[in-house]
Structure formats: structure tokens, C-alpha cells
């Protein structure tokens, strides 16, 4: 029998990793080639939110004692962009590949469903983090943002982008058309993001809406991420981490099951 491992390889990577590494590289290049749209545009959008909301509300709202509203707003905006871009990366790549038909180039390869998942997931995380970091750099012009605990920031940025990257894979596999994908974005991602406490603390809401907010996983990602900056939050960061981590695990298992069965990819 023929040994399928290439004996002439000069690559430093083990043979088993070269395939998923190539897919990851391709996914990274895909968004980097259009960085004006995938990185610069969300940074500008976040900046506009920052300018308008901070200008209107700075002198009227103070959520935490001693924390100006603009400073309160920035971590929420960063996390919102991280989440939205992580989702956009995997979902748009998959729906485009499916509609264009070029997904077949990946389906014909020996990549396993786990490798497929990891490549799309890591690319989504990286895009989310790149956008988030760029917004952080720009926001530094407006306010001197303290960091109470870097590790909470890192943990929520990573887990949040992983959760939304995974959700994007599910959406990309499920949707057959661009309008179905737009529905995902407009009717699930946007409402959950805007009602998650990016612009306010849920303690400022009526009791009923506070309880509703606690059912929104986005709330825990924003609140935990913000905790890393101010050392203050609406709920315990550990509880938020458990909720976000649990949600990621559930979605990751669903995604892996979909990929293994070939749902909507192989018939």
C-alpha cells in the first residue's frame, strides 16, 4: 500500500498539522486581504458609537463610582466588536464558500471534522481579537483606561470570540442563502449584543428586564470582560466565566456533531 505521508517534506510542522494549519492560514489571509472591510470598518463603527454616546451621556450617566461613562463604555464596545467580528468571520467564510461552491475544495481533503472546526474557530478568534485590540488602541486617545485584571480580560475575549466563532460556523453551515445569514445577524446577534449591557449596567433596568438580561449569554461576556478593566461588574466574573465556558462547550459539541455527520455539507 502507498504511504500517504509525503516523504520529501521539508516543513517543520508534523504532517498531521500541516493540513489544518493551511486551512487556518487561508482563513486568516481571507479576512486580511480585505482588512479595510473586516478590520478598519468595525473600528470606525465602534469609534462612532464612542463619539456619539460619550458626547451625549458623559455628563448625565455614571454607572460605577469614579468611572467616567466614556471609560465604562469602551470595554463594552470592544467586546461587542470582538463578538460580532468573530461571528462574521466564520459565518461569512462558510456561506460564501457554500454559495460559490468552492467549499468542495476543503471537503475533498483528508481534513478531519475536528481540524476543520479548529481552523475556522481560531481564525474567528484572531479576527475578533485583532479588531478588539485596534479599537482599544484608538480608544486610548479618548480616555486613560485602567486594567484591574488582565487575565479576566484575556479569558473573556478568548472565550467570547470562541463562542461567537463557533456560533458563526453553525450559522454558516445551516444557512443556504445570504438572506438567511442576514436574518441570523439581524434577529439574533444584533439584539443580543445591544441588550447585553454594552451601553448601560443592567442594574439601571427595571427588575423584569434585569432578569431577562440574565438569560442573555452576551451579558456575561460583556460584564466579565468589563470586570477585567474596573474590578467591578453586575455579577461575579467567575459565574460569568462558567456560563460563557458552558455555552461554548455546548455549541462546540453541536458544531462538531454537525461537521462529523456532514450536515448540509455532505449528503
Amino acid at each position, binding site marked *: *500500500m*502507498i504511504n*500517504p*505521508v*509525503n516523504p*520529501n*517534506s*521539508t*516543513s517543520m*510542522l508534523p*504532517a*498531521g498539522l*500541516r*493540513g489544518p*494549519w*493551511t*486551512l487556518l*492560514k*487561508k482563513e486568516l*489571509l*481571507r479576512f486580511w*486581504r*480585505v482588512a479595510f472591510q473586516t478590520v478598519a470598518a468595525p473600528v470606525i463603527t465602534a469609534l462612532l458609537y464612542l463619539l456619539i454616546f460619550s458626547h451625549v451621556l458623559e455628563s448625565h450617566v455614571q454607572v460605577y463610582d469614579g468611572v467616567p461613562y466614556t471609560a465604562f463604555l469602551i470595554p463594552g464596545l470592544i467586546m461587542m466588536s470582538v463578538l460580532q467580528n468573530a461571528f462574521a468571520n466564520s459565518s461569512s467564510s462558510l456561506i460564501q*464558500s457554500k454559495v*460559490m*461552491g*468552492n467549499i*468542495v*475544495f*476543503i*471537503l*475533498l*481533503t*483528508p*481534513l*478531519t471534522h475536528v481540524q476543520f472546526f479548529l481552523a475556522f474557530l481560531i481564525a474567528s478568534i484572531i479576527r475578533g481579537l485583532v479588531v478588539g485590540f485596534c479599537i482599544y488602541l484608538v480608544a486610548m486617545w479618548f480616555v486613560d483606561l485602567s486594567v484591574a485584571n488582565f487575565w479576566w480580560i484575556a479569558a473573556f475575549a478568548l472565550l467570547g470570540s470562541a463562542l461567537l466563532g463557533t456560533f458563526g460556523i453553525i450559522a454558516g453551515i445551516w444557512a443556504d442563502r445570504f438572506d438567511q445569514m442576514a436574518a441570523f445577524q439581524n434577529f439574533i446577534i444584533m439584539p443580543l449584543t445591544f441588550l447585553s449591557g454594552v451601553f448601560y449596567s443592567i442594574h439601571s433596568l427595571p427588575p423584569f428586564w434585569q432578569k431577562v438580561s440574565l438569560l442573555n449569554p452576551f451579558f456575561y461576556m460583556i460584564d466579565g470582560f468589563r470586570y477585567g478593566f474596573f474590578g467591578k461588574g453586575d455579577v461575579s466574573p467567575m459565574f460569568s466565566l462558567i456560563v460563557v465556558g458552558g455555552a461554548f462547550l455546548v455549541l462546540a459539541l453541536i458544531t462538531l456533531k454537525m461537521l462529523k455527520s*456532514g450536515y448540509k455539507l*455532505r*449528503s
Partner: protein
Amino acid sequence: MSLPAIKISGIHKHFGALHALRGIDLTIEQGEFFALLGPNGAGKSTLINILAGLISPSAGNISVMGFDVQSQYQQARQLLGVVPQELVFDPFFNVREMLRFQAGYFGRGRENDVWVDEILEGLGLTDKANTNMRKLSGGMKRRALIAQALAHKPPVVVLDEPTAGVDVELRQMLWEFIKKLNRESHTIILTTHYLEEAEALCNRVAMMKQGKVVALDSTANLLNKFSGKHLRLTLGSVVLPSSVEQLVRHVENGIYTFALDDMAQIEFVLSALRTADIKVLDMQLNEADLEDVFLSLVGNAQNGVRSVS
């Protein structure tokens, strides 16, 4: 004895109520140039998609050089290069990048660049290597599609309608390239609508109809089995004598094609026409070709056309 390149055993495929493949058994040896022929809906692409792992069979199994395409899909896909029928491409990258990615998915790195250059040259794509895929013409995209299937240097290459919609010049160029691959010991499996393509290139042919293989033999044997002459007579609008009617294979615009077993039947037909006072306006005598075999076995209604679509 070496393992067969492809072994297909008892493959069935149901799409709901449709029984698309009805028990396909086929063995293709290493180094063969094999054609899979059949009209639309015969099940060729379904069979290819099962081989490629894009569709799961309802029953049966397929192996590529001994590796099962389902349970040992990683090994099987390493050995297989598939050229899809649709002209698909990734608009974000240029030709060389796409080939490197495709090779990379199979675990190949920069050491594979020499082979990538060879493919580019063989397919006349060298000067387009740095051109974005979306800027290529249809013919160039078709070449790039073939190049992608070959990027990881697979010993078994499957081409699903590789020359559909390409001009004559490019078709000849692709034929020469595929023949060269076969000479370099790649096993080639071709699905095609163009019967002359199978006749010109392939050593062995399987003809499919309604999910079954209705003929499987070497191209030469199939032609021998159906050896005979075709007499094409331009008669205009006439009523043929019943004695020769059974020999008529095809009628179009007053041109009657008679299938003859031997030369002696020519005189029989002409004599019957003379007796019936039917004037022969023009006459041609042709050898039987793969199209005749195909039409006899598949019984396609579109008699007389070179490409059955």
C-alpha cells in the same frame, strides 16, 4: 498483483423515493484510463461524489487503492484527486496560492512547489500563476480546476466532465495533458458526455443507465461487439418498404441511417428502394463508433447527435 485503483462493491444510493444507484460493482485497475458514460440522470456524478466522500452511499462500499472511502477516508482522499464538474473557484486568491493551499490541505509544503510549477506549465497556466482566480477566463478557470485536483500529486485522478463547455482547441490541449498524466502512471477516471472523448482516450468503458452499469468492457471490445456499417441515405420524404424498415437506426431531415451487419446488406437495401421506386439523393458509409454502442445500450432518444446531453 497490485491493489485495484478503485473497487466499487454493491453501491446503492437512495434520494428519498429515487433509487439513483442500483447496485454498482466495478473494479478499475491501477494505470487504467477509464470512462464512465451515461446520459443525464444515469448516476455518474452520484457515483463520483460517493467516491470523493461528498455523498454517503445507502449501501455498499468503495475503496481507493485498498482504503475504504468512508472508514479510511483520510488515506483514501490522499490518493484521490477529483476535478468537480462545476466551474467553482475562490475569488480571494490567485492561481498559485490556491494550488499551494490545496497541496497544503493534504499535508504538503513548499517542497511541493516544483510539482505545482510542473502542473502550471503542463496546463499552460504559468503566466497566469499570479492572477486572481476571478480574473481568469472560463477556459483558464477550467485548467485551474484540474490543476487544483492534481496539486497533491494523487495517483488516482477523477475528472467529472472535464471538457464540458470548452472550445475545441482547449479540449485537445486537455486531452493531451490527461494522456500524459496516464502515461506517467496516474489512473484516470473520466465521466463524459462526449463519446468521441471516451473513444479517443480511454482503454475501458462503463456505460450507465438509470443507476446501473449496462456495459463494461474495453473500448476495443465494445466496438467489436457492435461492429458493423452505417449506411446514411438521403431520400427525402418517403415511405420505406417494410423489408428495410427494421434496419433503420435514425431518421432526420430526410436522411435515413441504416445499421448493417455486413456489406451484403447494402445491395439488399438499395434493391428494396429501387423496387419501391425511391430515389437515392446521396449516400455515405460509416464504421460503427462508440456512439452506436451507447445508443444501442442506453437507448437514448436523442439518436444521431455526437454529444449526448
